[in-house]
């Protein structure tokens, strides 16, 4: 197999007294198998729920499988995942108790956080990926990456990102594949020396900006000060990033072959866009550029989502919202089911790429937990989240099942289970009451 990201170990370490932990690259070292494997997590979200008609003639388009436990069969919607059956678990019946009482379109924000978005203070809480990134992100060049098809942060309760920082602030998602690529793999401008001096300039510059800003802050009214603190926090955070980049300066970015990546794909070419986003997450994991990624396929804001029309452009007839609304109508179940199936195909492609890539004695998927699903079962319904947990076989997961829970089990138990498998020490996550014992080996 062609490995364009192959790195010569000497190139890799030339001229450096390596002091920080190295990115883990399978292609680099034969002895690497003795080192602990990196543990990764990826979350992929879609809005408005899935096809789940109660009518018998639509049974084959039900998203949730028939049967239960080990003994279950996929319906049409999830058939594309058949080759991965033993590497994943379908989970039904779960929801965030906090989400059950808020608006039918308001739950995307809290899917990864379990936060409460009700009343006047619409402040979210930290998302699962960011807790993991805070604990483990220092081992890679990037702590995490946040992607979505719409991009940015969107609007509270209709956000276009899945990731939230510790203070509950949304983290803007990138929606241009080329930007993701440039961040992860793009060539740095200038020589090492030039970069080094640029970093050092950056640090003085940011210091000076911070200093100067303190005098600005004093002149502001109270509301403005709160807003201004966002600015100050952002400057401090990039100071941190500059320092980090400086440390990583010694190690070149992995070089990957961009052939086959549709880096200019946008909302006019949805299939290429989504495939490329999956490809980029795969490459990010494979090159160990980051271990934590989130990707929101679409959000529940008709007013800003550019992804709502994707099914129309791809020949599924209606917008994602209309497909979901039509799920109960005659023929609607099949129309929505086919769209569900298309999304499952793309997920399957991503999972198979991870599985088909060797790492140590196993493959990348063995050490990657992928969480896929929605915070609606069908439109406006904030219960019974359709959920797939895949991968992580060597992190203590036991797959090949369809698990059903009742409402006594909060969805956050999934988050807690994942954090513990990642070996992030947490006692609880949001309103979790325990772990999902049934999924653990």
């Amino acid at each position, binding site marked *: 197999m062609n490995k364009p990201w192959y790195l010569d170990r000497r190139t890799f370490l030339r001229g450096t007294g390596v002091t920080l932990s190295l990115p883990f690259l399978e292609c680099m070292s034969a002895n690497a198998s003795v080192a602990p494997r990196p543990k990764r997590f990826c979350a992929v979200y879609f809005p408005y729920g899935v096809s789940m008609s109660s009518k018998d003639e639509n049974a084959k388009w039900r998203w949730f499988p028939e049967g239960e436990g080990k003994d279950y069969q996929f319906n049409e919607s999830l058939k594309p995942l058949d080759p991965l059956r033993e590497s994943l678990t379908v989970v039904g019946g779960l929801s965030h108790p906090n989400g059950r009482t808020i608006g039918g*379109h308001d739950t995307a924000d809290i899917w990864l956080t379990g936060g409460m978005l009700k009343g006047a203070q619409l402040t979210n809480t930290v998302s699962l990926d960011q807790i993991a990134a805070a604990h483990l992100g220092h081992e890679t060049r990037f702590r995490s990456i946040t992607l979505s098809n719409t991009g940015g942060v969107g609007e509270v309760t209709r956000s276009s990102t899945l990731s939230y920082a510790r203070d509950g602030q949304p983290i803007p998602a990138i929606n241009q594949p080329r930007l993701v690529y440039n961040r992860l793999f793009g060539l740095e401008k200038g020589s090492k020396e030039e970069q080094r001096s640029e970093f050092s300039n950056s640090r003085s510059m940011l210091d000076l900006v911070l200093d100067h*800003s303190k005098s600005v802050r004093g002149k502001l009214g109270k509301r403005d000060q709160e807003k201004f603190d966002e600015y100050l926090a952002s400057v401090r955070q990039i100071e941190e990033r500059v320092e980090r980049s400086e440390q990583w300066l010694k190690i070149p970015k992995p070089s990957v072959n961009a052939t086959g990546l549709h880096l200019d794909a946008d909302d006019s070419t949805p299939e290429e866009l989504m495939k490329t986003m999956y490809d980029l997450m795969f490459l990010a994991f494979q090159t160990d550029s980051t271990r934590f990624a989130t990707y929101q396929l679409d959000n529940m804001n*008709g007013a800003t989502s550019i992804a709502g029309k994707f099914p*129309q452009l791809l020949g599924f007839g209606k917008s994602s919202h209309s497909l979901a609304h039509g799920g109960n109508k005659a023929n609607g179940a099949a129309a929505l089911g086919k769209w569900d199936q298309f999304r499952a195909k793309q997920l399957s492609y991503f999972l198979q790429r991870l599985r088909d890539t060797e790492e140590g004695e196993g493959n990348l998927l063995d050490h990657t937990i992928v969480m896929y699903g929605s915070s609606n079962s069908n439109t406006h319904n904030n219960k019974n989240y359709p959920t797939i947990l895949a991968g992580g076989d060597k992190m203590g997961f036991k797959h090949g099942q369809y698990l059903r829970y009742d409402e006594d089990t909060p969805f956050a138990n999934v988050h807690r289970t994942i954090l513990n498998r990642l070996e992030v020490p947490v006692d609880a996550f949001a309103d979790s009451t325990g772990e999902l014992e049934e999924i653990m080996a």
Partner: protein
Amino acid sequence: MLLYWGVVAVPLMAHASSAASSAEYEKDIRPILEKHCFACHGPDKQKNDIRFDTMSTDMINDRPEAETWHDTLDVLNFDEMPPEDEPRLSDDERRKLIGWLNYKIEAVVKATKSTGGRPVMRRLNRSEYQNTMADLLGIESRYANNLPPEGLSEDGFKNNGASLQMSAMQMEYYLEAARTAMSKSIVSGKQPEVFRHVIEESNGTAGNKSQRERDYSNTLSRTSFFLGKIEKDYHEHGEFLVRIRAKADLKKGQGYPRMEVALGYRVDTLMPERIVDEVEVTSERIQTYEFRGRIEDYPLPSRVQSKFPGLLIRVSNVYDDGSPMPKQETVVLEPAVGKKKAKTKKIWPKESHLPSIEVESVEFAGPVFDSWPPKYHSDILFPSKKRRTDERGYAAQVLKRFMHRAFRRPVELAEVEPYLALFERVRGTVATFDEAIREPLAMVLISPDFLYLVEAGGEEKRPINDWEIASRLSYFLWGTMPDESLFIAAEKGRLQKKGEIKRIVATMLNDERSWNFVDQFVDQWLDVGAVNRVAINPEFYPDWKDELKPSIHEETKHFFAEVLNERMSALNFLDSDFVMVNRPLARHYGLDESPRGMKFERVSLPETSDRGGLLTQASVLLGHSTGEDSHPVLRAVWLRERLLDDPPANPPPDVPGLDSENPDFAKLPVREQLKIHRGQASCNDCHRSIDPWGIAMDGFGADGLVRTEITRRDPKKRGKMFAQPVVTETTLPGGVDINGMDDLKAYLLAEKREQFARALVSKLMTYALGRSMELTDEAMIDELTADFISYDFQLHRLVQEVASSSAFLTK
């Protein structure tokens, strides 16, 4: 109350006094609670610790109670209370109770979000940042490409200080953009060598199949374009110049052909994707047309990729008279001989009725400069003797001048110190002054005074100063930084006089930069961008052409601009006797009298026309459709939100969808379908005040055209299409029977013109101030509305009044 149409006209004022509200509670609400709830949550029992008879209804001040009321709303929406074995609420009781709770809770939310009637320090949004960078540096380039898309405020605006956020990633891209900008602005060394290529015949080939189906030619028509390929060296940074020698072949009764130039190379379509510009070709004699841009703004092919495709320049003719595209014809090149199949080729028939362009040559050159060093460089690094004698002193002057423009106010020497400190630090590490000054200049571009509209503020409101007024005016009306004349006006203290402000506003609206205001305000107020979120299903609209979308998007903006610039009445938004169209759109709308070209022109409508006003514009009709059919609910919500400032409440959690698996459902007219929806009490509460507005508009399809039949699929017959007659008779809230769009417009004009006026005032204020309107703004809005109405709803005057209102001039 939000749910009731009849009460809506002046709802906030009516409810603002708590006396009215508590009287309503005693009269209408308490009796319902007493009848259904007190038994378990009253004096005797307090199940779940909830007791209604003594619970405070002052939700703004008693927050724990407000939370309990909120939970009460939820259990009612979920139909969890009263318990199953108890008597149900009647529909009327339920509606009253939910309506009251919704209203009260909304008020609490508003009160909590209040910014005290003052704008929150606001960051330049993407569009403002782009314009400001271009104006500040004097270089047209793409500065905001990497910035994340902006979120919307709850009222749909993109310039709301409270909702514009900052994040580390955003800062990172600001820093990168600042440095890149400075490396362009401050040049060093000798003028770089200029590469020049002249292409006389279309010599490129595109990879994408659908693109290949156009012919390559020096004659530009709807079915052919010129594709030039450059394989030899070309510059990869700096300004380029495309010089095209071409002439038009004009046709009687048709407009001028329009030449569009695109450049770069897109990996997935294998075509140049990014448009440089377009221009009308009006002469039948060869003329030279020049196009400029910065090459780094265009995706360039990679020289290291397996097969270097070359830099592609596409020159095409985007003129379209709106007539259907011709079909390709197959011509036989070599006839079939024995078993050998015939060799054929598909070609486009010549459309000799359409104007075309004949290209003689295409020249591509770069990097080009007007002078060396270029003007934008010398504007920052102005000539001075000091430069050689006192480098530090010169740096201080350079920075101070630059900061003055970047911060949009005078700068104290002390403020320059930190920037000077950076200069000195960097100066020690690099060879030249020019290199060293780039970094502190970049630092200016990431400082808060540049990225935000910073206005000092204390406990008390204060009138803003001249410089702050200059910025507010300029971002309101131009979407960019003040220009030299505004700076001068500020410096001379002329901006404190209301009369002077009005005069300046009129001048500013005359300036072409005011298009930024039209473009941004119309997009945010009316959400015309919705057309880009809906894809038309060609099975339902076989004649549809996606190429129309940009024209549809533009129409509403040109319409707004016409009303504004010609000092017309804003009631034209409700109905008008003219439209603003270009040729393809006129063809689409079936207008006889038609503009000749792609430019938008005012076209009078005949008496009998179905068109006029905003409601019949395709941007509204398509944007709020499913792409297959109209979407009466979305259209109705749009009308109430955007034109009447009366948005319906959000759907409650777990609202059931149209739960009909009845295959005959599809055969019902939409009016009947919606009726079924309203049959459920929980839906009816809201939808009876929503649906009628949309039903009245149902005579227009997703394509924005009048229709008498609706195309549907029959679910029982494998989706076979059938036609359904359009029904537009409906009863508006308040009991007015109307039938169709004309009636709707007449009703709005007769009965709702004042509410519309107030809505427009409120939206314009929201945009002008960059903050949401609050209770304390009501009096101001009323005053402006009264003035607006008494001056015949003149939009131009309203903009002047808003810009000179005390709210606009206060921090």
